[in-house]
C-alpha cells in the first residue's frame, strides 16, 4: 500500500526539481537539487483511517491544498486583471432621462433650486385632457429623476442638497394633486349636467333618429324667453364640451404599464 504513494511523491519531487526553463545546464540542475533526504515527511507516522480515503483532509472549502506538494506548487499563481470595460453610451439612450442631462450625474443644489411654482387648479381648469395627461407624465418622469438624484447623493456622500431636491419634489407633487383636483371637478360637473339633461324633456339622451336637443319654444315667445334661453344654451354648450373631453380621453391610447 505504501509504495505507490511513496513513488508518486518521489515523482512529484523530481518534477519540482527539474528545470522549469529548458536552457539550464546539468551543473546548474545539480546545484539546485533538493535536499538529500526527501522521505522525511513521508516517514511520519500517519493515522490509519478506516475508509482508506486518499483525499482525506483535502478540501477546497477550507483551502487545505493538496496533501503533497505538486509539480507547479512553486510557481506563483497569476492574478486576474482588474478589468472594467468602458463603453460609449448613446446620447439618446432612454435611461439618460433619469439624470438632469446626458452625461451629468447630479444637479448642484443651486441648480436644483431654480424651478418655478407648481401649477394651480385655476390654471389647469382651462386645459384639455391631452394637456393634463401629458403634464402628469412629465411630472412622473421628474419625480423619478429626483428620486434617483436623492439615492445617488446619499450613496456617494457628495454633500448637501437633499433639502433642495425634497422641495422640488414637493412642488411636483402639488402639481399632480392639482391635476387630479381639476379632473375630479370636471367629472362632477359632467355628472351634474347629465342629471339635468335626464330631467329635461327637450333633450333626448336615448339616442336614435333626429336631433338630441329639441327646444319647444324655438320661435314663439322669443323675447320673453331670451334671458334664460341664452343661459341654458351656454350651460348645455359647457356640458357638451366637458362631455367631449371625457369621451376623448377614453378613446385615446395612453401609455401602458402592464
Amino acid at each position, binding site marked *: 500500500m505504501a509504495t505507490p504513494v511513496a513513488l508518486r511523491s518521489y515523482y512529484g519531487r523530481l518534477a519540482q526539481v527539474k528545470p522549469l526553463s529548458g536552457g539550464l545546464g546539468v551543473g546548474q540542475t545539480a546545484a539546485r537539487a533538493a535536499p538529500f533526504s526527501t522521505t522525511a515527511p513521508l516517514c511520519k507516522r500517519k493515522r490509519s483511517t478506516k475508509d482508506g480515503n486518499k483525499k482525506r483532509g483535502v478540501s477546497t472549502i477550507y483551502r487545505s491544498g493538496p496533501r503533497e506538494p505538486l509539480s507547479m506548487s512553486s510557481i506563483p499563481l497569476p492574478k486576474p486583471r482588474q478589468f472594467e*470595460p*468602458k*463603453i460609449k*453610451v*448613446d446620447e439618446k*439612450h*432612454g*435611461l439618460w*432621462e*433619469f*439624470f438632469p442631462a446626458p*452625461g*451629468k*450625474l*447630479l444637479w*448642484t*443644489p*443651486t441648480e436644483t433650486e431654480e424651478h418655478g411654482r407648481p401649477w394651480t387648479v385655476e390654471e389647469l381648469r382651462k386645459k384639455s385632457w391631452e394637456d393634463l*395627461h401629458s403634464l*402628469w*407624465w412629465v411630472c*412622473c*418622469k421628474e*419625480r*423619478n429623476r429626483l*428620486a*434617483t438624484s*436623492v*439615492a*445617488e*447623493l446619499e*450613496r*456617494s*456622500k*457628495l*454633500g*448637501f*442638497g437633499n433639502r433642495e431636491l425634497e422641495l422640488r419634489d414637493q412642488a411636483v407633487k402639488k402639481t*399632480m394633486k392639482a*391635476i*387630479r383636483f381639476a*379632473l375630479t371637478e370636471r367629472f362632477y360637473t359632467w355628472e351634474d349636467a347629465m342629471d339635468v339633461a335626464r330631467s329635461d324633456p327637450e333633450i333626448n339622451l336615448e339616442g336614435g333618429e333626429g336631433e338630441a336637443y329639441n327646444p319647444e319654444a324655438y320661435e314663439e315667445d322669443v323675447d320673453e324667453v331670451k334671458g334664460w334661453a341664452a343661459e341654458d344654451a351656454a350651460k348645455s354648450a359647457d356640458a357638451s364640451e366637458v362631455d367631449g373631453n371625457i369621451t376623448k*380621453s377614453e378613446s385615446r*391610447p*395612453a*401609455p*401602458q*404599464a*402592464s
Partner: protein
Amino acid sequence: MAEAVSVAARQLPKFKLGKKQVFLPNHVITFLRKDHLPPNEACFHVPLTFTKFDLRDYLWNLYNVEVTKVRSYVKELPLTQKPGTRMWYRPRAQKIMTVQLAKPFQWPEVPTNTEAWNKEMFDLREEKYEENNKAQTEKQKMQLPMKSRQPLTHERKELSKLAKQMMSGDVKWSNDVVLDPKWDNILEQATQQKQTKEESKDPEPQEKKP
C-alpha cells in the same frame, strides 16, 4: 403630426406589450447605481406592487428602453429605531429589480469638484454627529469620559511645558500687577525683619554645635 410620424418610426419591442391602460399612476421608480453590474444591466427600486412585466412595459412606454430580462427580489430592511424615541419598527420592504438592457448603459462618473455641495462642511457635520452618538452610547453604559484618559489637548500640553520651564528657573513668574506704593514701605520692613530673624537664628545652632 410629428407625433404620429415618431410613433410610426418607433419599432415595436421584441416582447409582447401589456394591454391594460393606466392613466394617472403614482409610481416612483428609482434608478440605482450598482458598480458591480455589467453595462448591459440596470437596477431599479420599484413599488412593492410592481411586477416584472410592469417594469418592462413602463420602461418601454415612458423611456423607450427595451429590456430583455428582468430579475427581481424583495429586500427586507433591518429593525430600526425611530429617531429621538425608543420605538422599534420594521421599515417597509423594498422591491429591487435588475433588468437586462438591449442597449448598454453606463453611469456617469461622480463629479470630483464637490465645492457646490459644500462637502467639507458636510463631512464636519457627519463627524460631529458620530462623536455625539458615541458619547451618548457611552453615557448610557455609565462609562463617563474621564479627563485623565482623554488624549492631552494642545492647551494642556502648552501649560505643562511652561510649568517645567518655571521649575527649572528659565521663566520667572509674574502676574503683572502694579502694587500701590504705600505697600512698598511695609514690604521693605517685612523683608528686613525676615532677614534679621534668619541672621539671629542662624548663629545659634552654630554656637550650639561645637
